[in-house]
């Protein structure tokens, strides 16, 4: 991304805001709270998700459904997103409707309706959102990647949450959590698209500047108890952006469902600390049985540093060499040449505190999980040894660059990219800095890095054979 600088401005009440023009006829408004699945209290997995749904549901001056009608009548679309690191609400409308959307978002931010009725409705929505991905016959493998890929970090639980942990939650606990974590001083407002800068500044100050800042900490602690999640040793980043679904107004983007937490429930809303992930001490193999899945599958999981780590652009370039495009090394070898895999992916899940590099494959007909995993691992590790030509490097950089720059082409994409970079990487301008690093990186740099960070690192192997029960249930 290019100039101007992407430093958000701070309103006196603590709210950050950022605006970037995008040619076209639309504007996007995104409100991001730096509170996600990682911040859920122990035993209350999904509380952030629940609060997000309450904020989106109704407010003092917006009856249930009224926000969506307002946006729909303007020809716009709206959605909510929950992630391990953040919760977000995003709306896209024709540009002349911008002021109305700002009013509505400010209203949702300042006056959400938190009462037993809206809580019951949000619980039901959350349950549905949790169950939808489970229709996929490989859902258990995705859950196992998250649950066992992280050793101690709350990222293990995912972002969607566990409806069972929320069923006895009372409204006071929800209010306390909302007051502590969803204040305007923990949020970023992003506006992108076709707007007049002067008018936007006035509107932001008028509608958002007048939102009351959160109560002082002493007032909040009166409503709260002990620390939220127990931090542990070491470091790493996390997940990719939420998997999608969306059509028309009021869709939701979500990450895969959470694993159940064994700990007892807490309504604690103490200020989140920096959370660290333990280092995996040694490689490990887990087997799981996917009785209803038609083809065996395998996943390999490596730990990756936190999203603001300076090495992240090198991880991205290596991932592009192996997994991006139709000619990425993994597809080229395992799908086209050896026909071992029906399909595969290599994804870099970057999060605030820790992350994962996940190579996942479905076996081609007649193959089993173990040889597939072995071949997959060989291909991933081979990046350290087999020379990377300048042309191959150039191709990977072209794919990455296009992917990054395309975020600037529409108001919708740019708002999402900026808000996510701020919440996950602590820097809305992180993408531009990544691109500057890629330019300087050579093939030898990537290989040397790969030897150190992946070849010598412990790996988690998940083997999912179909039908018969197989070993340890993940």
């Amino acid at each position: 991304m290019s100039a101007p600088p992407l430093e958000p401005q701070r309103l006196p009440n603590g709210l950050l805001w950022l605006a970037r023009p995008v040619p076209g006829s639309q504007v996007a408004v995104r409100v991001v709270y730096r509170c996600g699945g990682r911040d859920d209290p122990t035993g209350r997995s999904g509380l952030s998700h629940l609060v997000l749904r309450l904020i989106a549901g109704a407010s003092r001056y917006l009856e249930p459904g009224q926000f969506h009608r307002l946006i729909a009548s303007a020809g716009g679309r709206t959605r909510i997103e929950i992630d391990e690191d953040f919760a977000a609400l995003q709306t896209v409308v024709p540009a002349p409707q911008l002021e109305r959307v700002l009013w509505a978002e400010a209203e949702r931010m300042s006056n959400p309706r938190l009462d037993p009725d809206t809580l019951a409705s949000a619980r039901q929505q959350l349950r549905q959102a949790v169950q939808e991905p489970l229709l996929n016959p490989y859902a258990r493998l995705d859950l196992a990647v998250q649950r066992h890929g992280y050793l101690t970090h709350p990222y293990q639980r995912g972002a969607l949450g566990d409806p069972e942990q929320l069923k006895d939650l009372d409204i006071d606990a929800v209010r306390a959590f909302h007051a502590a974590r969803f204040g305007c001083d923990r949020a970023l407002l992003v506006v992108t698209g076709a707007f007049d800068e002067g008018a936007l500044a006035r509107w932001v100050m008028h509608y958002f500047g007048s939102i009351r800042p959160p109560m002082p900490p002493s007032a909040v602690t009166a409503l709260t108890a002990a620390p939220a999640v127990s931090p542990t040793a070491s470091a790493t980043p996390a997940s990719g952006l939420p998997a999608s679904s969306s059509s028309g107004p009021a869709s939701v983007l979500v990450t895969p469902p959470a694993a159940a937490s064994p700990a007892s429930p807490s309504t604690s809303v103490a200020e989140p600390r920096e959370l660290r992930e333990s280092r995996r001490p040694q490689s490990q193999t887990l087997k799981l049985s996917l009785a209803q899945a038609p083809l065996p599958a395998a996943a390999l999981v490596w730990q990756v540093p936190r999203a603001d780590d300076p090495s992240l652009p090198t991880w991205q370039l290596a991932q592009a060499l192996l997994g991006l495009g139709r000619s990425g090394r993994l597809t080229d070898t395992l799908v086209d040449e050896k026909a071992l895999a029906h399909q595969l992916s290599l994804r870099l899940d970057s999060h605030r505190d820790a992350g994962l590099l996940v190579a996942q494959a479905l076996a081609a007909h007649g193959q089993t999980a173990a040889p597939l995993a072995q071949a997959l691992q060989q291909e991933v590790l081979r990046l350290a040894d087999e020379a990377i030509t300048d042309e191959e490097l150039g191709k990977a950089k072209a794919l990455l660059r296009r992917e990054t720059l395309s975020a600037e082409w529409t108001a919708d994409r740019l708002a999402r990219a900026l808000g996510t970079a701020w919440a996950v990487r602590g820097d809305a301008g992180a993408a531009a800095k990544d691109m500057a690093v890629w330019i300087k990186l050579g093939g030898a740099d990537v290989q040397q890095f790969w030897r150190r960070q992946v070849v010598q690192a412990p790996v988690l192997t998940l083997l999912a054979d179909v039908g018969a029960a197989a070993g340890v249930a993940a």
Partner: protein
Amino acid sequence: MTVDLHRRGLMLGAAIASGSTAWPALAQDGFDRPPEAPPLTALPPLAIEQARLPNGLRVIVLPMPGAPRTAIRLIGEGGWLRDPAGKEGLAEVALSMLAQGAKRDGDEMESADIAYAGDLLGLPLRLALTPSTCELALEALPDQCDDAVNLMADLTQRPLLAFEALEHIRSRALDALVLRRADALLLAPWAARRQCWGRAQPVQTTASLKRLRRDDVLGFHRQYWRPERAVLLFAGDLSLQAARGLAEDFMGDWRVPKAPAGPTPAPALATATPAAAVAQFLQLPQGQGCRLIVQTPVPRGTPPGLRELARTLMHQRIAARLPWPWDSEIESLGGALCWRMGVTLPVAAVPEQLARLREQLPQLADEPVTPEDLALAQALALGDWQAQLAEAPDALLAQAMAAGELEAVLQWPQRVRAISAPVLQLLMAASWRDNRTQLLLLGDAGLPAPAQRAWPGLTLTTMRAVIGE
């Protein structure tokens, strides 16, 4: 920046004084209604430029001044509705084989070379199959458009279509078939089409894929990749002259086969009659919930703008009355139209939602269309059109061409504005009648009895009955 400190100061004071927890501590006062809605902006129709090469190839350009990259699509007629009976899957296999090998200047390009060439442009080559069309899609920087068009020309004019490639693609297609049948979300559209259109709707089977021979692929390719039946579409910052130049350079010598193309086989769907009301439950053993689909036929020839307003309005109504994340579409298969709404439900919610749906569907369709309803549907239809233009204009145009509705999409704002409430009401009220509505449950909906009580007539069915094997 001007800051209204006085007002904010008053509010801070009020917040501290009240200390109430009944409302959140952040409560904001004095903003009890939104600002006045601005008048809707009149949108102009979409302007495209067109030319035709001597060999019949149609070149279409959607000018987008300032666009950093150009989207390019080469569109042929070999969609999956053209699958011959007993050889379902041929269109998909024939398209996939284009990326498995081709000749350039007499030298063979393998699949890896082709993949590499696409990736070098920054976005991988995409192969898309719709009911009526097959497409190659690339995207390039302005100075790389020649590479993109050159690659498309190689793949469609000089494909190898080798026997080994057929075996590889067939094997992948068989795996994909197995995956589709195990996943309610993937299976749903195919099962729903079968339910609506019966055997007239082609569906791949293991047997039909195994029956494919290389000669079938060669014949299919010859029949449907012909310059006079293809369209080269550009969306980007280039002129028609530049686009035509690219087309002439790389596709000008694409010869029209001596043998006439003959009439395109009329898809069986063109004359098919939709099935009567039926309710089926296909159990899949995931145990985590089910996919619910309701669908109703729409009269052939219903204009796309009218269809979209009806779909949009019904979507709003059902989402308000049965608050689940519904999706909806009105699908056109060779002119045969089916209006479909779907939702994924947890097992426990199925009986109650089925009962409510059965009661609500006709009521929702019968509700009068008020001026506010019409305005809402029009705003949404126009907003979606703008959003698609911003996100993927080439996909919007390609989709319109595939459905034979390009003119309607170009004139979308005017067509949508011209629809009146009574006409919309007529379509809404004629749809979703008890004797026309079909229901399909896929997955785990619990024991059949509660669902059958909620929707009388619901019967269990099997994969063999739905798909044919």
